[in-house]
Structures are given as C-alpha cells and as structure tokens.
C-alpha cells in the first residue's frame, strides 16, 4: 500500500510573482509584480453610483477586501470584470522599486463554487454581458480560460460591445494572462 503524508501547509512566494494561480484548500491565490516603468495595477469596484478606483496612495502596503458579489476589475491585469461568490482580498506592497500584489479568493469551506465575468460600459457604468461559471471547484484557471473565450468573442463582435443602456461601443479588452495576448489585447492591456 502506498501512503503519503498529508499536506499541513504550503507557501506562496509573492516576490516570485509568477502570475499563476494556486488553488488548494479553501483559497485560490495569485501573486504578481510590477516593475518600475510599468503602470501599476489599479483595483476598480463597480457600485450603483459608478466605478470606484482604489489606487495605491503611497509606498506603504495596502490591503483591500472586495466583498462577495461586488464586480471588480484590475486595470492592466484583466480587462473584464469578475464577481466571486466569496470575498476577495488584494494585498499590495512595495519592496525596493518593485510593487508586489497578491489576490486571495475564498476562505469559506463551502465557497469558491462559482464566479462570473461581465463588462461595464465606460460611458454610463451599466453592467452587461454577464456569464456565470459554476465549476470553480475544478480550478480558478479554468474560470480564466472561460473568461478569455468571452473576451475574444466580445472583441470580435461590435454588437456584443455595444452598451444596451447608452449605445456606446466598448473598446477591446484583454484576458488575465498577458502571455496569451493577441496584438489587439496587448494594446488594450497597455492602455489599461
């Protein structure tokens, strides 16, 4: 019989910032970095009254909770909006000249079951094109693959990019992983 020791704990090195998600236990964790000269990641949350940005204000560390059910977007990191069924924490800290970021989604024993991706009109802040992914238990990366397909369909179809509220046409956007960008997505990511 083959037996293995159970995992007691594990580490996620935020300074490595390899841009991958770790999904184990009750959390999904991502870490990334921005070097000098790169625009910082900026958290945006959707509210009934419009979009609220949460920029880093100084070189101190910051930690922001995005409540479950609140759509959020991080400019230069992903161009669509995410809604999780559990709270999300964004921790950012500066070390030397580099900004480090960590996203922690989850915590509850029965959480991390589903997430949605959607779009928000930059002219009137209306939400549209919301699509639910109910298989989060199979890994957070699978949700991001699902979202990338939605992003590509969105960019390819002006009708999908047309706001049903005000008629404005949403510019092209980008997925989560920069290395998968098409030239159009890369330009959108750089623009933020």
């Amino acid at each position, binding site marked *: 019989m083959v037996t293995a020791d159970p995992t007691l704990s594990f580490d996620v090195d935020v300074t490595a910032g390899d841009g991958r998600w770790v999904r184990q236990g009750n959390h999904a964790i991502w870490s990334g970095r921005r070097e000098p000269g790169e625009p910082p990641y900026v958290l945006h949350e959707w509210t009934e009254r*419009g979009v609220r940005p949460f920029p880093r204000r100084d070189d101190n560390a910051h930690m922001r909770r995005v409540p479950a059910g609140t759509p959020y977007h991080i400019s230069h990191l992903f161009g669509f909006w995410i809604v999780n069924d559990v709270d999300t924490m964004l921790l950012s*800290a500066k070390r030397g000249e580099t900004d480090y970021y960590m996203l922690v989604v989850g915590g*509850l024993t029965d959480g991390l079951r589903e997430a949605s991706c959607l779009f928000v009109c930059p002219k009137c*802040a209306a939400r549209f094109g919301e699509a639910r992914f109910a298989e989060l238990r199979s890994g957070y990366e699978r949700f991001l693959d699902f979202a990338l397909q939605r992003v590509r369909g969105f960019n390819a179809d002006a009708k999908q990019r047309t706001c049903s509220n005000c008629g404005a046409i949403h510019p092209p956007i980008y997925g989560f992983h920069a290395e998968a960008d098409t030239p159009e997505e890369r330009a959108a990511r750089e623009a933020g």
Partner: protein
Amino acid sequence: MMYADVYVDEPLDKVVDDWDFLNEKVLPKFLGFRPVGHGVYGMRQILPETPQSVEQQQQNGGGPIIAVKNRRHWEIGPRGVVEVKRTPLVAHVMLAGTPHHTEHVYGYWHINDMDEITIDVPPAADRPGYVVLMQGHPKGNEADRMAWYCEQCTELVHMTELVTGTLGFKDFWNWERATVRAYNSDAKLRTCWNCGHVNPLGYLALATQDTPQERESRLKW
C-alpha cells in the same frame, strides 16, 4: 483610465470606512481578530524582540498582541513537530486541522477548522512591519481549539474547543484566558499521561495580560 468618465467622485475615506485594512486609522481595529464579511482578520506588529515585561511592552506601544522578529513557527504532522520558516512577503497557508504554535507569541497549539493564511509585510516608509492573518469565518460546527502537546514525547496532554462557527469570536479572548489559566493552575493538566513530563506554563496571545510567570514562559518557548 478607461473608466475615468464614470468614477464616483468622492474621497475614499469619506465613503468606505475600511477601504484599506493597513491604513493607520483602520489597522488598530485588527489588533485582535476582527470578523469582516466572509473572513476573520488580524494584524500583529513585529517587534525586534520579546519585551521582558508587560511594562516594557506597553512602553513599546506595539499593541496587546505582538509578533517578534526572532519567533519560530512550528507545526505538528505525522512526522512530528516541524519548524516552518517564514519569509517576508511569502504567504504561508496552513490547512485546516494543522496544530501550530508560534514561539513568544502564543503559548499553546492552535488548531482551527479553517485554512489560515499568514504573511509578513515588511516595514515601509512610515510604518513598522506587520504580520497579516486571514482566514474564512467558521460556520456551524466549525471550531477553534487550544491544545498542549508534551514537549518531550509529543503526546496530546490537554485540549479545549470553542465552536466559533456558532458562537463567533466575541468570546475568543475570554475563552483563551480561562483555558490558559486553568491549564497553568493545575499541574495535572500539564503532566504528560505517557511519559510523566511536567510541561511548561502556557501564555496568552494577549501579552499585556501576562502574569510574571507567564511572561517568563513566553520568553522560553
């Protein structure tokens, strides 16, 4: 700045109380454990070393619960007691059910039913370093436990449980104090049933409440 046209035009501080948990005005709320939304959070200022007395700690102004630079972290698994290195900006994710103890910080083994993440945030321009703790809020029968294992043979010598899933965290510190004081006042509870070793006194996470004997124990393990 794709969304600049639809930004909510109000200062963040006025509309979102806890927009930054590490903000100097918000952080003091997290010096114990604070449930917020789906999670429970705590912040611990990192001092260079354990203050020798309660008075010295109060002069340092690090808050009632402290972390110290020279602390060591331990976990218990099938291979026994193992030391776990901690590095600034490396998140340590402790899976539910793992007994863990941090030297000089709390004098017992904590076992929770929720996965727990800790990360050391190094000092920045105008702020000291902090340990940030986060975990999901327990629900239903999910609980927190305080345990002591024999320092000689690692057998469990004493354990109590608080069903935080039902009772929440409002009684956590009273429970901690009552449990530690009961353990310390009864040598039988501290005596290993297996090898007969009498184990050292426990101590609270709330270090400002140490008795002189508990402070002595804090400096040792």
